[in-house]
């Protein structure tokens, strides 16, 4: 589960989300799921054939990198959905009901990749700004199978 800071202030290009905290409490999740499903149906993206992750702002370096990591099929499907949705928007139309995104299709395909990219950047920043303390002393203290014990040859 990400830290409270990340849940309140957002994880890079992904916005703030208390979802991990809620998912850990099954009773609360069952109650909350009704409201989140209502929101997803009312938001309007499903009626234009989009998935939720198509709406993530892609003009950030992390999301661009995550988009490079999609498989060719995922990339093609995303472009198709974008073109279809833009066409609908231009005519102020919705798709016929059979072509709306179903809840089973609405998989978060991009969010795990974005989280992966953000985690890699965070790891790099951690390594860049870490300080090294007392490696020599630790080495002297450490005894492993390879080091000779004092007293024997």
């Amino acid at each position, binding site marked *: 589960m990400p830290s409270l800071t990340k849940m309140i202030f957002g994880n890079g290009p992904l916005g703030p989300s208390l979802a991990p905290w809620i998912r850990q409490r099954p009773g609360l999740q069952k109650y909350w799921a009704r409201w989140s499903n209502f929101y997803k149906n009312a938001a309007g993206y499903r009626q234009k054939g989009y998935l939720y992750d198509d709406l993530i702002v892609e003009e950030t370096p992390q999301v661009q990198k995550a988009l*490079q*990591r999609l498989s060719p099929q995922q990339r093609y499907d995303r472009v198709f959905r974008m073109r279809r949705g833009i066409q609908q928007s231009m005519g102020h139309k919705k798709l016929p009901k059979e072509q709306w995104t179903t809840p089973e299709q609405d998989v978060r395909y991009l969010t795990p990749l974005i989280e992966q990219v953000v985690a*890699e950047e965070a*790891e*790099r920043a951690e*390594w860049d700004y870490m300080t*090294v303390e007392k*490696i020599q002393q630790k*080495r002297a203290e450490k005894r*492993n*199978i*390879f*080091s000779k014990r004092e007293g024997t040859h």
Partner: protein
Amino acid sequence: MYSLAKLPRGQSALKTALRRSVSSKASSAGGVSVIGFENKGPAATSSLTVAIKAGSRFESTPGVAHVLKNFAFKATANGSSLKTARETELYGGVLSSALSREHIFLTAEFLRGDEEHFLSVLTSVLSSSHFYGHELKELVLPVVQSEAIAAQSSPTTLALDAAHKLAFRKGLGNSLYASPHYPVTIDDVKSYAQGAFSKSNVAVIGSGISTESLSQVVSSAFGSGSSQPGSSGLNTSKTSYYGGEARIPLDIHAPPTALPTLVIAYGTTSPATPELKVLKQLLGGESSLKWTPGTSPLAQAADKVPGGSAKAFLLPYSDAALFGVVISAPTSPQLAGLAKEVAQIIKSAGSAAKDEEIKRAVAKATFADATASETLEGLIANVGPALFAGGEVKSESFSGVSASSVSKAASELLKAKPTVVAVGNVNVLPYA
């Protein structure tokens, strides 16, 4: 004046020196052969090498061995590739991987005292490499591409690669480098790695580490490793020698350091004998002194062409060998002339050799064999194949070599069809 009588004494001293440095061979630490050289190398650093019998010879799809070699030290269960690299830097070590036609070598050089950490790095590469698809695209393929381009731009490398392809076709004939014409996917790499990283395919060479503790740690580390006990999972085919001819044009935009090159080679389907090593030194091509071309026939021929060179080579493999000459000259017409001369020299190789020349060649070959194990690279190149062959590492004995045996070996070698690769202005360069 150096006296040839000194030679036998030098050889026995050499033998004792080698015996002293090879400490012990623990044959199977959990199915993995381990060898340690306790007194070798600098006093402050040690090195660990894992030799995997998964060179380009065994690859299932073209280029996958090259990609797998570059996939070493990427994300494993121990941590990401960044973590491995930064930790190694903090420890003050060097990680490297090398590919030969028969083996992949993963090497870690480090300060004494850090053996545990680097052995865990090496074993995690073998047992728990993740092989992420995005790592292939972002980290590995750019390196593979640059190495392949560098190989293409050097005519000698290009010619030797083509010579192997003509000589051995499949198996040893597989190119060392990946090609853009045959893209390698992550699934290819994963399946090749699964076959390659089995315990029977792996050997550990330690330098500057006590062998008993090394074998103990290796058996505990690999005991929990891969699940294939006996089979190697990689296709091994018998080597046969074909021979042939290839003519490759040199691009007009090639850098001026790319000289037209011609390779004349002969292959055998048995491991390299001492006679072949002596024959290589007999033909020579390299000088032991500055500013003089040397006394070998190839060197004398190359001296007539300013900027030209003709060097004999012997590439030994576990069940075959490729013997030949690499000739290069600044322009293709000069190369044509030089190549015709060299072909004459090769045809008469070994048959007209005088006793003194043979003795000189034997001395040079003994020295080359002895000094080959002095650098870490040379040591690994010698010891790795020997470990997989199951034999002890011993120095080659040249006592059985005489003028008649050398000429016999040469004539048998030259009976086969030659392999000729010409790189340069193909209109001018000669045919076989």
